């Protein structure tokens, strides 16, 4: 299985080895061919290459890891209970006791920040994953069906996208009872058309590839062709899109909480913290600066990751 790892002669039996003019992509020679790489191993190899070639991507991954750790281990990391009110320490400036100060109800800002990562990450991860799956499903189906059905589906998507996202979210806030799952549903409705758009365009492109015709000629069913040949070939742009939209979802989630129609208080959320801080701009600026910065850094990390993924997958930039 792994006899081809290293040191194998350039060509085994193949006579047409000299690769003169015939189309040879700039790739490592076959002697460096990687061993069988599937699933986890392939992902790991890809990740290592990504970190090696995309320095900023590596930075973004490090930042994202910090956020994930914050969200997952919040109870271990937070110095205090985020809901505990220190009545004697209202709007206290940052100090050795309260590293990032306290808010108007005497709650520890740092602890709320750490717990806030939870709501933010849960909403963003679930929304992005669900929209990615839904949008891909709709886009691929639409692109495959073509003609009238495609036309109807795409006009529906246009309709959703023609309402400015925040207005649509407000409208949906009226329709749904406020809760975390409502926020996720609303954000999913807003984000799905974007995934659909990319998935559809990719499907249209891939559909014309010869390997799709080859699969059909081989006897592969439509379903199999989609799963085995279409989906894997659109993974790159979809991942890039997911990363960029993830950033957008973080913003939208905090905007909703800021407006008081997202994560309901007292559950800590960055948007909610900003909204209470907005009332104490001069009295307790740390109530704004801390969540404002962490929110921006989170968005920054995912934007950066999206950019890095785009470069990483761009064939014109192959190193």
């Amino acid at each position, binding site marked *: *299985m792994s*006899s*081809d790892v290293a040191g*194998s002669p350039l060509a*085994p*039996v*193949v*006579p*047409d*080895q*000299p*690769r*003169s*003019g*015939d*189309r*040879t*992509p700039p*790739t*490592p020679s*076959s002697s460096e*061919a*990687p*061993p*069988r*790489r599937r699933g986890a191993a392939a992902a790991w190899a890809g990740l290592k290459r990504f970190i090696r070639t995309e320095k900023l991507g590596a930075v973004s991954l490090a930042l994202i890891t910090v956020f994930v750790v914050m969200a997952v281990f919040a109870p271990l990391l937070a110095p205090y209970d985020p809901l505990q009110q220190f009545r004697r320490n209202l709007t206290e400036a940052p100090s050795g006791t309260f590293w990032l100060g306290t808010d108007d109800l005497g709650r520890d800002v740092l602890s709320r920040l750490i717990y806030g990562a939870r709501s933010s990450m849960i909403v963003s991860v679930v929304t992005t994953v669900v929209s990615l799956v839904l949008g891909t499903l709709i886009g691929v189906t639409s692109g495959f069906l073509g003609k009238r059905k495609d*036309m109807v589906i795409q006009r529906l998507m246009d309709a959703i996208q023609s309402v400015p996202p925040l207005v649509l979210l407000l409208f949906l806030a009226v329709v749904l009872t406020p809760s975390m799952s409502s926020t996720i549903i609303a954000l999913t409705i807003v984000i799905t058309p974007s995934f659909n758009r990319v998935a559809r365009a990719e499907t249209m492109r891939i559909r014309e*590839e*010869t*390997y799709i*015709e*080859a*699969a*059909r*000629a*081989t*006897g*592969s*069913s439509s379903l*199999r062709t989609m799963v*085995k*040949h279409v989906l*894997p*070939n659109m*993974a790159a742009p979809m991942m890039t899109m997911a990363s960029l939209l993830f950033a957008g979802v973080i913003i939208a989630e905090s905007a909703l909480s800021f407006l008081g129609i997202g994560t309901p208080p007292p559950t800590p959320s960055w948007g909610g913290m900003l909204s209470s801080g907005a009332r104490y701009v001069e009295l307790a600026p740390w109530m704004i600066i801390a969540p404002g910065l962490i929110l921006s850094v989170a968005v920054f990390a995912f934007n950066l990751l999206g950019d890095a993924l785009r470069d990483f997958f761009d064939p014109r930039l192959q190193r």
Partner: protein
Amino acid sequence: MQADPAVRDPDRVADAGTPLLEARDLVKHYQIRKGVLGRPVGTVHAVDGISFAIPRGKTVGLVGESGSGKSTAARLVSRLIEPTSGEVRFDGQDVLAMRGKEVKALRRRMQMVFQDPFGSLNPRLTVGDIVGEPLEVHRVASGRARTDRVVEVLETVGLSGRDLHKFPHQFSGGQAQRIGIARALATNPDLIICDEAVSALDVSVQAQVLNLLKRLQRELGLSYLFIAHDLNVVRYMADELCVMYMGEIVERGDGDAVFADPQHPYTQMLLAAIPGHDPVTARAQERGVATGEVPSASAPPSGCRFHTRCPAVFDRCPTEHPPLYDAGQPGRVAACHLLDEPRQVQRA
């Protein structure tokens, strides 16, 4: 399309028994639609009434300039697209009457090799998965047995088990095309349709792949529908030759005979383009060589479709569509009114 007397009787085409594949009066028209409502604004005559037969164990070549309808013909006989009209028989069965499962069963026996060696291989799959796909699709073999079979066909085409886990981009064009051939061989088909299978390759590599295909034919008793725009390549491969122009077969006959003595001015033109091909140079000097652009497939010229470019054009050509006339030797036909002239002279 007029009925073609020469093909009505299949025995005139096939030399022994029923042919493996038979196409009769195949037509494929594409509607060009425009606007939101899809108003048809024209019709592309991609394939316009072609007939041919592939005898078992033989190679039929299909030549013609780009756009003459060769790929469309290949897709029609393998039922990748539905014809506007016509008939296709594979091993005596009516291909166009086949439903789901039968089509799938047909695919198992009829495989394809495409022009672009890399384009026809999914870049995200390993060689093992690419070549193993037909085995999986047709439930021929799985697991260990699948791997064994894949290695076997890889070795047959000159690759090896070491290539199993590599990706297409790690190969040269010639090697990639071997992978495509291995995939076609996996299910032990009877017929392989090679659509410009070597056109994208270097000349030296071309020869190797062609030799491989020849060897496979000898060893496995394969039949080929061999499509190319390069006459030299087809000449090397084909037992019988069909020359296509604008969706029609304009000349058909034994490969060597057609090369030695082309009857249709279009065939002569194609041969004249080959450096140092004597019979044609002679004729071309007689009549002058055809030039000019291929007319639009959505507005084919009236009468003989070649008349806009033909150096021998005369009064009948623009008005009367030439049927396939007998062209001397048995099995040879060509759609040119010039072949009708001597007879008229005799009759007179």
